[in-house]
């Protein structure tokens, strides 16, 4: 008997993917809640790493008729001392209670692992980039390959068999190449022929046909066609994200941490929409400079506070390197709200005239000390300024944050999918 031994390991994996997606789709709102909850407890670095989530089993049960209670009879192994008629005290509950894997018991929570992609998708699912008037797509170096007809030269792997054979057929018909059947027919006629004279005639005919068939090849190099490909530039949307932060003495580590979290989220979010995302870090005290990430978050700095300097720096960088017609520009500013009064006018003017017109989105995040309730009492100078601008119709998004756990809700709030444009009050 033939025994078949088959190596299935090479089969494509992910056979259950479809079922898994169905499950996630069905449990979507539950999983989403779990994802958000999980992400709040996480570190910024692995905030979107995927991992285990726990959801309640609402609507995901697979009920069956089950019996319970009543008189129970059981046969068990391992009797040591009992004899017939003994009574055993009931302990709190029967020890042999095993619930099925993730099913059965009604209100159980259900734990499982999400992949990174699934996690990000769910996390950012109900978010959308604010739909501003300007949405440009730049043409960059990225190239794609596209079919572009046929050519007479190319590599053997690109031979178009059908096209080649079609051309060969046309040529053979045009040049009247004798077909195989024709020659075979003649040969059998010769074999069957008894008359010598006729036979000679036929043989000559055959000779002629065969010569012709040799002269006109079945497939000529002329027939061969190759598939042609050409590279085409593919439009790739690209974005630049400006991180502006006040690093003057009044900004504590806690505040910087809040800002960092926000920037991280924004980065992940943009990364999902745009293939290419540049980040520019601009930190400022009373003057602004473009720095790398390390310096941005951890570098020491001291001085007064002039927000206009950062806005001016951003404006210059945009002018030099990021043509607004090629780049989608996003900016997020974090500050504790301090600004010198004299700077207000200038900052407001820079923002409305230079920055906002080229930006897709400008978010202002006011960070405060953890547990700082005093923070709610009076608005800071920057907040007051921006609020005035916004009331004047400038497309600004602004929020206040003082706790780590608020970052995610605020972020969600800012980018929530809305019917109308983002204009909500804090």
């Amino acid at each position: 008997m033939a025994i078949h031994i088959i190596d299935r390991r090479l089969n494509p994996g992910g056979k259950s993917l479809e079922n898994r997606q169905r499950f996630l789709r069905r449990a979507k709102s539950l999983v989403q809640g779990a994802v958000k909850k999980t992400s709040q407890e996480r570190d910024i670095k692995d905030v979107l790493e995927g991992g285990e989530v726990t959801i309640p089993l609402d609507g995901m049960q697979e009920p069956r008729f089950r019996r319970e209670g009543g008189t129970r009879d059981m046969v068990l192994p391992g009797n040591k001392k009992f004899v017939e008629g003994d009574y055993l005290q009931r302990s709190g509950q029967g020890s042999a209670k095993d619930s099925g894997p993730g099913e059965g018991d009604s209100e159980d929570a259900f734990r499982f692992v999400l992949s990174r992609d699934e996690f990000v998708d769910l996390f950012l699912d109900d978010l959308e980039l604010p739909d501003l008037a300007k949405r440009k797509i730049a043409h960059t170096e990225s190239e794609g390959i596209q079919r572009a007809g046929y050519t007479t030269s190319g590599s053997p792997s690109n031979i178009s068999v059908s096209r080649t054979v079609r051309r060969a057929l046309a040529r053979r018909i045009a040049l009247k190449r004798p077909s195989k059947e024709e020659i075979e027919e003649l040969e059998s006629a010769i074999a069957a022929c008894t008359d010598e004279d006729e036979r000679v005639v036929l043989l000559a005919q055959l000779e002629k046909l065969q010569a012709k068939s040799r002269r006109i090849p079945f497939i000529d190099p002329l027939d061969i066609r190759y598939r042609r490909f050409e590279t085409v530039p593919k439009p790739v949307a690209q974005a630049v994200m400006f991180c502006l932060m006040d690093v003057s003495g009044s900004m504590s580590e806690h505040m910087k941490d809040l800002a960092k979290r926000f920037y991280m989220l924004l980065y992940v979010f943009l990364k999902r929409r745009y293939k290419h995302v540049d980040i520019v870090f601009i930190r400022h005290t009373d003057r602004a400079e473009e720095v790398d990430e390390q310096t941005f978050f951890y570098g020491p700095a001291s001085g007064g506070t002039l927000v206009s300097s950062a806005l001016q720096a951003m404006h210059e960088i945009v002018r030099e390197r990021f043509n607004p017609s090629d780049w989608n520009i996003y900016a997020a500013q974090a500050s504790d709200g301090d600004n010198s009064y004299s700077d207000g006018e200038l900052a407001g003017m820079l923002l409305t005239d230079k920055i906002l017109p080229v930006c897709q989105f400008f978010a202002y995040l006011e960070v405060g000390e953890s547990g700082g309730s005093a923070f709610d009492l009076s608005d800071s100078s920057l907040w007051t300024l921006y609020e005035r601008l916004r009331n004047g119709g400038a497309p600004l998004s602004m929020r206040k944050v003082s706790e780590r756990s608020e970052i995610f809700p605020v972020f969600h709030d800012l980018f929530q999918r809305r019917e109308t444009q983002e204009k909500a009050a804090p």
Partner: protein
Amino acid sequence: MTERLFEGADWDFHTLQRITDACEEVAKNDLGLDVYPNQIEVITAEQMLDAYSSVGMPLFYKHWSFGKHFAFHEASYRKGLMGLAYEIVINSSPCISYLMEENTATMQTLVIAHAAFGHNHFFKNNYLFKQWTDADGILDYLDFAKNYVMSCEERYGRVEVERTLDAAHALMSHGIDRYPGKKKLDLRAEEKRAGRRRQHEEEVFNDLWRTVPAGKSKTRSALSVERRRKLLGLPQENLLYFLEKSAPRLAPWQRELLRVVRHIAQYFYPQSQTKVMNEGTATYVHYRIMTKLHQQGRISDGNFLEFLQSHTNVVFQPEFDDQRFSGFNPYALGFAMMQDIERIVTNPADEDREWFPDIAGKNDVMGVLRDVWANYRDESFIAQFLSPKLMRQLRMFHLHDDPEERAGIRVDAIHDERGFRRVRRELARQHDVGYIDANIEVVDVDLSGDRRLILHHHVIKGSQLNETDAKRVLQHLADLWTYDVSLIEVDAQDKVLREYVVSPRPITAAA
């Protein structure tokens, strides 16, 4: 002759071939097994998880619940809470055995002997499998089911199909014919029949018929209770069958889906009745084959010890007061009983001659075992062949837990002369699915009134249904029936213990 099949732990596909040939030789010549052609497939851990989530079948229709199971298994596997099985075997012809790639050569030998010969022989010869399953057709049928579900989703929408399948799954355990019908199930013919029927419906469809006035309808009184019950085939315990045939407002494709689920449930029915026997057979077979291969010198002493170690783990039976105890281990019980039968046949004590006059000292071990494997299921197997010696060896005892009894749980019988038969009867009953599953049947439909479907649950020993789950299942049932459904729990004296009434949820999409 004494050439080793393999050395060490490594194997390749030639090794597998050699192993399979060697096992086959022993299985055929020494044990006289009769098996389906074998197909052995090597798979990865991920593929094993895939198989877990679709009840071990290589292909299955798509449904979210399988995704849920996959997610669950994956999570516990990753955390190390759960090991994976060494193999999965499918009752089909050819008999497909999936082997994990990370098994050592010894484990592969064990697994091939266990699955490809032990289980395979049992599938092919046991009367329940012969009666209820169609090994030749199952894979084709599953393929048909998968495509059919898919085409339904395309035509009627995923949500609608999902709703029907959810409901069908909830009723799956009550979608089984427990008594053999007139003819053997032929899944291939079934598949063709489904296609033909749809085609016929399409061909003869004529919208005009709808407008033709119907003849005078029968007066309601003409439909007497008796006649009505007869027309509907009541009482009926196969709920899915009943719905498929009699639910008033199901679309043809929904009936077909119920049919698919019903057939699949039926396919698994013998497996749930023969756990002890099936595993016992396979374990006994692998033990015999491995021992023989070792005797022949084809497996080294070291590898044989490795085998013995995993074998011992498999047939380990913790005692009732052990933390690891979770009921009888079917491998342990089955294997112990098979070995015990071997002992009775070859070397019986006086007691065995008294208890098993038919087989004691008959000396044809394999003849007796093959007969046992062919003609029993767990319940009858235990009731017939559990010997006093084994009961003593496992120190079995019977507990009777009556909630009314103040004194506690009574020890009803133990492994002594007075108790042997009672212990054995009780253990057999524990393995009787007819006794384990709730006994629920459709008893009537209120045709003259509000078309309410009436079901009875015959309560045994005061064990009623779990309320939350019962309500959920009945909700599904009502959704399919589209009118009210009531379930009445009655005890042996026909006293009503409890009544559930559930109304169907409004249908959002087209009916």
